[in-house]
């Protein structure tokens, strides 16, 4: 027979979740506050949302983030899936250790090092071969792909390691060429991991401040960069409204991804 959780554990869980969610809740509540001050509740208002949508700098930055993030997510999905497939299916090949190390290191590398090193690469490349000419949304996307590959690879590799390979073998025995086996058998089986990986890479790109700050050019300010420069000056009701919108979008996406990963 299982005993219930002890009162100590339950108390700690409640405190833990309050700790995790109270700050987020305060931002949401105050995005609807008619007053600028956090200590005064002056009634329900949508004025900050109106101001947010009228804010051109934020609008431009959001457009750039929505351009970069799908590129970064798609690039990371393709490369990350190849990495996962290579690592899961080929147990030994020349340089495998280095390959595995490079594929997982960005998971834990402090962003500030990734950002600095990529910027220095872009500058050195531009000096040496003239590409990339300046920094723009593509240099940000390249940096975000490099970050996202590691996350996609971990998710997809776990899925590839856990499914029944006899299906692939059966298809091959029936005469399907390897590329056909991959797209007809393997891809549908790992689809939940592919979807979750793409979403995670998208979120990482959409949320990233540090790497983007290093690799962005003057005309490619992303949404987090605008939020950061505004937040540095203090609490802003418009940012509260923006944060609330992002929270709603993320909650819907995560709930969706959660379903995808659980359906087996």
């Amino acid at each position, binding site marked *: 027979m299982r005993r219930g959780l002890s009162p100590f554990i339950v108390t700690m869980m409640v405190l833990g979740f309050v*700790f995790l969610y109270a700050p987020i809740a305060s931002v949401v509540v105050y995005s609807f506050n008619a007053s600028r001050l956090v200590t005064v509740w002056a009634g329900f208002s949508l004025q900050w949302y109106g101001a947010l949508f009228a804010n051109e700098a934020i609008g431009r930055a959001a457009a750039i983030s929505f351009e970069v993030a799908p590129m970064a997510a798609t690039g990371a999905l393709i490369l990350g899936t*190849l990495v996962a497939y290579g690592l899961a299916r080929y147990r030994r090949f020349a340089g495998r250790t280095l390959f595995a190390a490079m594929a997982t290191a960005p998971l*834990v590398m*402090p962003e500030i090092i990734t950002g600095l090193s990529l910027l220095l690469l872009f500058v050195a490349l531009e000096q040496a071969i003239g590409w990339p000419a300046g920094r723009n949304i593509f240099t940000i996307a390249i940096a975000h792909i490099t970050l996202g590959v590691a996350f996609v690879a971990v998710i997809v590799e776990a899925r590839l390691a856990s499914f029944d390979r006899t299906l692939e073998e059966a298809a091959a025995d029936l005469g399907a060429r390897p590329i056909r086996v991959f797209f007809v058998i393997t891809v549908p089986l790992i689809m939940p991991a592919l979807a979750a990986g793409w979403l995670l890479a998208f979120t990482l790109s959409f949320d990233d*401040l540090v790497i983007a700050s290093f690799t962005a050019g003057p005309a490619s300010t992303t949404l987090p960069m605008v*939020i950061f420069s505004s937040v540095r000056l203090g609490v802003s009701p418009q*940012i509260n409204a923006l944060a609330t919108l992002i929270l709603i979008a*993320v909650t819907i996406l995560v709930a969706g991804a959660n379903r995808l990963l659980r359906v087996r």
Partner: protein
Amino acid sequence: MNSAPRRFAIVALPYAWLLLFFLVPFLIVLKISLAHEAVAIPPYTPLFVTGRLYVTGANYLFLLGDPLYWKAYLGAIRYAAIATLVTLLLGYPLAYGIARAPARWRGLLLMLVILPFWTSFLIRVYAWIGLLKDNGLINHALMSLGLIDAPLRLIDNDFSITLGLVYAYLPFMVLPLYAQLEKLDPALNEAAADLGAPPIRAFWQVTLPLSLPGIAAGILLVFIPAVGEFVIPDLLGGPNTLMIGKILWDEFFTNRDWPVASALAIAMLLLLALPMGLVRRQLRGTGS
């Protein structure tokens, strides 16, 4: 079967990408950390001029000679270590509770831990400014309750930085702990109880030792990014906060001293090389 060419076709592209955009950039950072600062574009001296190699250890000597950098280096380790300890103390009961909760609750509780991890990091740090500042929500609440007369100094100090780190990285501690604790069979604890061990003793002698791999993974996943953190010390710490990530940022963006920023990055990497190697081992261990 011609599996070698196929293997090459699959691995070559990501391999080339990672070499170019992950490995080569570090070699460039290393190179520039050995160059002099220069008033030029880009702002450092070339390493090779007409076939001769010009390197200098001046940037590293500069870092060693100025106590500011030592303090920032040690400060980052101290903040990260304290924050890691607090996340462990807070995260362990949370992970344990989720792992032992009724099965129909577990998915929801787990999602509640994961959700903040997906939510904008910047916004979660920003949320604390409104709570902690002098005329913020916490001070306002304490003053209206009559508990304090003047606002407490809750922001721009060690407290707010540690709090921010704990808050931001708590999910990184809970998830590996949960993954480990979920695998443990509750029957082990029942066996210990049947043999007369009180719950506390069963915890110390059964559950805790068996969850050590999860603890190790959690510690590494919190400590490593916390050491290099920039956003939290910048937004929640005062202007004089000494953490290596913030100092690096200022060297690069404010002082435009690329060689010193590069030397700082190499110094940070040296500090993190061992824990980062351990993470790979941990990931491999849990993967297989």
